[in-house]
């Protein structure tokens, strides 16, 4: 994926560049708003990561002009301003997602991947059924009943458990952070003081996991959760 990254903090920029290159993306850094705008317009990009507060022109302004000039690449704002209105302002002028500093690299890559996927298939209708080709072997999903059938037993899931499973399955093998799951599953962009995500994952795991054998959902402390497709017979 070709990514344009506008960020004026050199250390943060270095980290993101390292992480993104490590995942095989071609990422280009620019350190000011004006530079970002000219680079954005001169080449085709799969994704633009835009810091909001930059010298010269701020990120909002860059994206506004980029969209006005016909730029179509999806944009993720990165902001140190956490106020909701800032986020809304960012999305209203043509951003597609946003991330608040500080963030986990895993969250950034999850958002980049998710937005990229969404963007590519945008014209087509999003299937209501979880049609992940990488379902664990022997699993069958019924999206009407919100149930999972495996090895002869059928497990019915609550609506939010179903959404959680959906997000996990769609990101199989990838670390999903707590804040990413909160946003995707519960549409919440603050950090509740209680371990709500942990408890929800724990409950889903208890329902889905086989009596013996490794768990499908791995908790990685400090990082997040990963869904593993341990095929069952």
């Amino acid at each position, binding site marked *: 994926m070709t990514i344009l990254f506008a960020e004026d903090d050199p250390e943060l920029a270095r980290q993101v560049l390292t992480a993104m290159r490590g995942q095989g993306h071609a990422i280009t850094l620019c350190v000011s708003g004006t530079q970002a705008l000219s680079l954005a317009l001169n080449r085709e990009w799969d994704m633009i990561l835009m810091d909001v507060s930059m010298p010269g022109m701020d990120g909002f302004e860059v994206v506004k002009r980029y969209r006005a000039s016909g730029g179509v690449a999806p944009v993720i704002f990165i902001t140190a301003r956490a106020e909701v209105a800032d986020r809304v302002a960012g999305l209203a002028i043509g951003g597609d997602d946003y991330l608040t500093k500080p963030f986990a690299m895993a969250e950034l890559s999850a958002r980049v991947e998710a937005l990229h996927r969404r963007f590519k298939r945008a014209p087509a209708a999003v299937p209501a059924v979880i049609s992940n080709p990488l379902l664990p072997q022997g699993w069958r999903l019924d999206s009407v009943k919100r149930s999972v059938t495996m090895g002869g037993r059928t497990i019915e899931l609550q609506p939010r458990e179903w959404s959680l499973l959906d997000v996990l399955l769609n990101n199989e093998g990838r670390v999903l952070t707590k804040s990413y799951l909160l946003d995707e599953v519960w549409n919440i962009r603050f*950090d509740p003081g209680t371990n709500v995500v942990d408890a929800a994952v724990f409950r889903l795991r208890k329902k889905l996991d086989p009596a013996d054998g490794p768990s499908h959902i791995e908790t990685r402390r400090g990082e997040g959760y990963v869904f593993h497709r341990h095929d069952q017979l």
Partner: protein
Amino acid sequence: MINSNSSLWRVSAMVLSIVVLAVSMMCWLTSWLLSQSLGTISRAVIEDDLGEYSVLYEKGGVEMIRSLYEAGSHQKYHVLRVLDAKGADLLSMQSEGIVAQNIPLPPVSLGMTTWKTTPMSNGDLLLLGGRGLKDGARIWFGRTDREDRQILSGVQRQFFLSAIFTAVISMLPVLWFVRRVLCPVRSFIESARILTEGDRLDERLRGNDGIAELREFARALNTSLDRVAGLTEELEAANDQLAHELRTPLARVRGNIDVVLAHYGEDAGREAAVLSIEEIERSTALIQAILAVRAGDTRSMRLHLEALSLKGLLTDICELYTAAAEQRELCLELLVTGDATVLVDRQRMQQAVSNLLDNALAYTPPKGLVTVLLDVEPDHATIHVRDTGPGVSETDHGRIWRRFMRGSAASANTPGIGLGLSLVKAVAHVHRGEAGVDNQPEGGADFWIRLPTSLDASSKPVPGL
């Protein structure tokens, strides 16, 4: 209000009693002096008349007395008797209401007047003077005090009227006191109350109508309030700036620790990295909460308002907490009596309710019950979060809403930094609502957020958006 009213009454009562006391004393003194003088005058008149009658009797006998008596205006209040040496009635003249024969006559002596005061049946006092005449006859002439008393009561009436007039006039300084002293002081009290209890710190004393000293006082106090406000503002702006500025370094540190976590093989190192990340997450939450509470305090919290069903909002947040409640062996239930659509910022309101649930889950012992209740009334809706925990002690009632203050039920292990309830209050405020806590009669706390439900533009929560 009661206190300042009582001082108004006190001043009025004092002024009035001074006026009444002064006027009554003057009235009493004047009456006494006047009645003394009138008594003296009365004696002089009687003595004078008796002298004249004696001379006339010697010249022309009793007929001369009669004609002089009749010539004078003696129809009222007077009595005249002349007896010869043997005691036979020579002349008996009387005014209406006086029966001359009934009046006891004092003994007389020649050339000298003897006196006697006799009370009459109508309440008047009759002053009688008697003298001996040359041929052994005797004369008595008397006068009642009716006329004197009429003069006295006339004077007293004048005093009474002037007392009323003076009392009315004396109310002018009271009115002045009310307008120039009491009203400004009352407005000071009101301003102080707003500064203490309200959420506005820009309130200032208004003493334009007051006396010079009060105006000066208001000016001086306002100047110092401005100074405090200015310093506070600077300090808070610096805090905000600091909080914002901390985000980027935290992001850098976090990025590096992520790398450590991903590439470090040994457990101890990984554990250290995990703990660091958790610490950074806590710090981030703290910064977030400080900024949000600050924004709520100054009503500068920018909101993304939507018309939302509160029932839906609460259903979502309860779903989020169900698993966590189960893990703590708590029962979380949602009770909804009707639904209300309100203009709210979904994230902020969910965060407020979520803060209340965080507390409920932290403070309720296992097997307890946490109830989220939506109570809809005609013009407002109330979200309750009730628990079966220890409740909120009397001393904690006010202080738990303050920043970084934690209730006495908190232990070292209870999560939180003491900003949750400040945020709840801030969020309620920017939505033109209120937040509070009551203890339930059967035990446990009942935290609530009350929101106005009218959707018209006039009640739009925030000026900014």
